């Protein structure tokens, strides 16, 4: 016996950044800023003109245009106003202050994380049950699907009132609502993932007379990981939406949802937009965190899964 072909040279894990990637990224950002500024200009025009008239100044076009960028309560705030508000919210106050965006983002994030944990575990557990017991699929699946057709805005107050009556307030009701939104993609993805192993791989386990838990741990679970992470990315974004929605009807004192609500009560559009930006950034960070966990996990379990077919 002679050793055959040497092993393939290891494929570079990460493709080098293509030259000029900065240009497209910068172009898109610039286009968004220009469109946003134009929208602010148009939407605030009449308000700015009125304000100039009230102040007894001549409503010249140049002056109106300048004023649209600096209204206290604009219809559409200008980009620099929102950026300044976010900056002030993040760095202007101690993070324990009720005026700090970091404080509110943390309140929302903690409920999101708890909801994500509850929803993911529930989603995975349901998928494991569905894959192993046909009766569970027949009896539970219609209810699971039905649960997702009910608007979350209608369900959220009911859950909060019901849990409040049972003595649960604060973090948990919000997390439950977030979990309600996020378990579904996890269940659907994991039913698919846990059923993904090839017939030949299942036959191999059968020749070993492996038990169902052994098959789950050594075949179904590892084979489902790419599906799991795809589901988790959808779930974590849905989770944040669920938490913010849960903060709206409760008159919550803290959280990004509470900031949105307070902003709309007092017509503080800049504050609303700042809270929206904070939510978007948070959401992007959460999806990125799941993506990093995915890369690390799949890289540890055999190269090609980690490098191929994603993004």
């Amino acid at each position: 016996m002679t050793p055959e072909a040497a092993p393939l040279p290891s494929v570079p894990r990460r493709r080098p950044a293509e030259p000029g990637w900065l240009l497209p990224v910068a172009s898109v950002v610039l286009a968004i800023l220009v469109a946003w500024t134009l929208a602010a200009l148009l939407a605030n025009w009449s308000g700015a003109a009125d304000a100039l008239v009230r102040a007894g100044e001549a409503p010249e076009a140049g002056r109106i245009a300048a004023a649209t960028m600096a209204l206290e309560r604009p219809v559409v705030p200008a980009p620099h106003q929102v950026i300044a508000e976010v900056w002030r919210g993040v760095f202007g106050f101690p993070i324990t202050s009720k005026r700090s965006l970091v404080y509110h983002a943390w309140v929302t994030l903690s409920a999101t994380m708890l909801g994500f944990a509850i929803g993911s575990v529930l989603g995975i557990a349901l998928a494991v049950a569905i894959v192993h017991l046909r009766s569970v699929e027949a009896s539970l699946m219609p209810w699971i699907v039905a649960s997702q057709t009910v608007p979350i805005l209608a369900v959220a107050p009911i859950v909060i009132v019901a849990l409040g009556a049972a003595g649960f307030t604060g973090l948990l009701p919000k997390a439950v609502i977030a979990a309600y939104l996020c378990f579904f993609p996890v269940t659907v993805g994991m039913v698919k993932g846990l059923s993904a192993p090839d017939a030949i791989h299942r036959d191999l386990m059968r020749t070993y007379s492996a038990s169902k838990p052994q098959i789950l741990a050594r075949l179904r679970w590892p084979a489902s990981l790419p599906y799991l992470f795809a589901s988790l990315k959808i779930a974590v974004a849905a989770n944040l939406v669920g938490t913010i929605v849960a903060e709206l009807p409760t008159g919550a004192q803290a959280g990004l949802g509470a900031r949105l609500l307070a902003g709309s009560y007092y017509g503080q559009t800049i504050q609303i937009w700042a809270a929206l930006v904070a939510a978007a950034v948070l959401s992007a960070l959460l999806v990125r965190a799941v993506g990093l966990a995915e890369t690390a996990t799949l890289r540890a379990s055999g190269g090609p899964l980690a490098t191929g077919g994603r993004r």
Partner: protein
Amino acid sequence: MLARRRIGTPRDLLGNDQPAMSRAAALALKPPPEPDRPALPAVAPRPVVSARGLCLTYEAADAPVHALADVDLAVAPGEFVSFIGPSGCGKTTLLRCVADLERPTGGQLTVNGVSAEAARLRRDYGFVFQAPALYPWRTIERNVALPLEIFGVPRAERRERVARYLDLVQLSGFAKKFPWQLSGGMQSRASIARALCFDPKLLLMDEPFGALDEIVRDHLNAQLLALWRATAKTVLFVTHSIPEAVYLSTRVVVMSPRPGRIVDIVDCAGLGPERPLEIRESPEFLRLCQRVREGLRAGHAYDA
């Protein structure tokens, strides 16, 4: 049971002394015992695989498909039996019945004296599939360790066995690699190591080299023969290559489709246990190939 030394080239191996077990096994295969050796006991050893009137019928939409019809077969310990025939002749189905991956619809089948299911439950056999069927998220050594993990073999013994069997198939340097980093032939060898590492007495192989090119296949055939001679295993081997079947086997079972049945059994033990690759040019080898081919023709295999 297995020789722990490293297997050299097939030629080297054939020149070496065989372990006692395999000499006994080789003896059992030769019908006329050599005069200077004591004759085998008159009582035939209990067959490893015994099929009587075995049938398997699938209920298809229009008409039932007779995958196996009235198959009779007995495989003695230490035999290397190949199954050959065109696709649809039931050779893979028969192997999967022995492995209890399919349920026969009629007849009797025993494996090591018990039902196929009982044999599977007590893990009597190792199965090598058409594809290597390695788990892509496991390294080669963890793939080979998979059955040992499932059988609850302690960690230290697991490590020792994996090292030994990877050495046997000459993959020692590739223990930490993932399957996709290996060539097709190396993946095949890894899957064979996985089937051998818990030392089953019966090895079921379903066209394990079917997807490989002829050069690699010749090489692996020689290695497999050396392995079989060094151990005392009974091998059931499905193939669609006539030379491969004759080269490897003590008996070749020729099968034919519609319904799947046995049309001829060709005894190849006359080639002897020592078979260099060149034996395939000998008149005896060509005669046996010719007989297999005639069997296939008689079974209308070429009409397909």
